[in-house]
């Protein structure tokens, strides 16, 4: 015998606790038969009545969940917010961190720009793993009978209201992108400057000798500037401390740049072989002075501008 009712009962009982399965089966079968009898008594066709009754009872898995008092959700309201906060926290830095470390290791192994690909792939893998295992953990906590004692919410946890956001997000994003592009350009020009030597090899724009100290130092300063931009966005307004750090970093970038430009150590001497104008020492001095003055103007203008903003926003 394999009627629709039999199949429905089997499907329902599959996921109710075993020790009460028989009892629920007997009772549910009786109830279903009662419901069918009621309809056929009113003149309905028994097969149609059976279909109607089972449709009314609905999805057997749902019914079984009600019998077992089981939750039909992966992570319920009790843990959802904690899960979400942890997920955001972990995803905010771990994949990027691991990806960067992998990329750095690859660079150290001499992969050059080939290091970016594996870094991104590893970061994505890590992100997927974090999301998966965190969700599995919370789903298990949700289903275990033990209640995890979560610290209750208190008013002290309220974040500061962003009453007046002095730092627009677009500005921060633009600044960080500019800084990252500048950092990326420094190694990039070493391999691809579009200036070719006589036998077609690439001539870097900047003196390769600078890689022994100055260019790495400038990269660190630029990276520091990007961090300051992000911190500034989080604080949401200028402070004098922030101004001080920012001024220091600006000078730490501009002063070495100016010094290198003025002492004719910035540009690659090999460029003179291809661009005859640069072979002339006077011309090189004029170019160096122009770069130095340009850098000085930018830094002074930036410092005045930030000082004015800081004064206005701390007043």
């Amino acid at each position, binding site marked *: 015998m394999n009627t629709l009712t039999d199949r429905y009962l089997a499907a329902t009982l599959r996921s109710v606790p075993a020790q009460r399965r028989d009892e629920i089966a007997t009772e549910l079968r009786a109830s279903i038969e*009662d419901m069918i009898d009621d309809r056929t008594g009113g003149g309905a066709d028994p097969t149609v009545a059976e279909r109607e009754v089972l449709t009314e009872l609905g999805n057997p898995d749902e*019914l079984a969940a009600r019998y077992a008092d089981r939750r039909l959700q992966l992570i319920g309201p009790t843990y959802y917010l904690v899960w979400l906060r942890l997920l955001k926290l972990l995803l905010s830095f771990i994949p990027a961190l691991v990806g960067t470390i992998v990329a750095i290791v690859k660079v150290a192994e001499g992969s050059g720009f080939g290091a970016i690909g594996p870094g991104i792939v590893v970061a994505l893998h890590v992100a997927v793993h974090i999301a998966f295992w965190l969700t599995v953990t919370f789903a298990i906590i949700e289903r275990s009978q033990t209640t995890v004692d979560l610290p209750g919410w208190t008013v002290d946890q309220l974040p500061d209201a962003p009453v007046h956001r002095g730092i627009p997000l677009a500005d921060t994003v633009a600044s960080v992108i500019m800084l990252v592009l500048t950092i990326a350009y420094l190694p990039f020009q070493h391999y691809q400057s579009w200036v070719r030597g006589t036998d077609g090899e690439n001539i870097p724009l900047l003196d390769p000798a600078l890689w022994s100290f100055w260019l790495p130092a400038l990269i660190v300063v630029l990276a520091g500037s990007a961090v300051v931009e992000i911190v500034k966005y989080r604080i949401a307004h200028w402070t004098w401390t922030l101004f001080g750090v920012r001024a220091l970093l600006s000078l730490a970038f501009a002063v070495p740049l100016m010094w290198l430009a003025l002492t004719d150590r910035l540009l690659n001497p090999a460029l003179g072989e291809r661009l005859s104008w640069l072979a002339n020492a006077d011309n090189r001095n004029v170019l160096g002075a122009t770069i130095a003055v340009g850098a000085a103007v930018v830094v002074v203008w930036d410092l005045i501008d930030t000082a004015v903003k800081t004064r206005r926003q701390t007043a």
Partner: protein
Amino acid sequence: MVSEDVLRTHLQELRRGTVVVASLVALRRPDYGYALLQRLSDHGFPVDANTLYPLLRRLEDQGLLTSEWNTEESRPRKFYRTSDEGESMLNRLLDDLAAVQTSITGLIQGVDR
């Protein structure tokens, strides 16, 4: 005009707890699942079969109902009855239901308590 969906959700919320009260009252006289379902809907408590049957088991687990199998009829039926414990909880629930009604009436008429 309020949308039908919103109305249905609020009515569902309002009715949810009353099914337990109605069942405990009705089962002062022992009855089996489907007969109880019909009695409730005859008295203006339409309830889905897939809600009522699991609910009866849960109330039994909580000790608010007792049950007994009746095998004398054509098919075996499980008869539920409100237990002493269920009766005392029912009284608390009925008091609260009356208190809600009183409060609402007071609120409508604008009388301070």
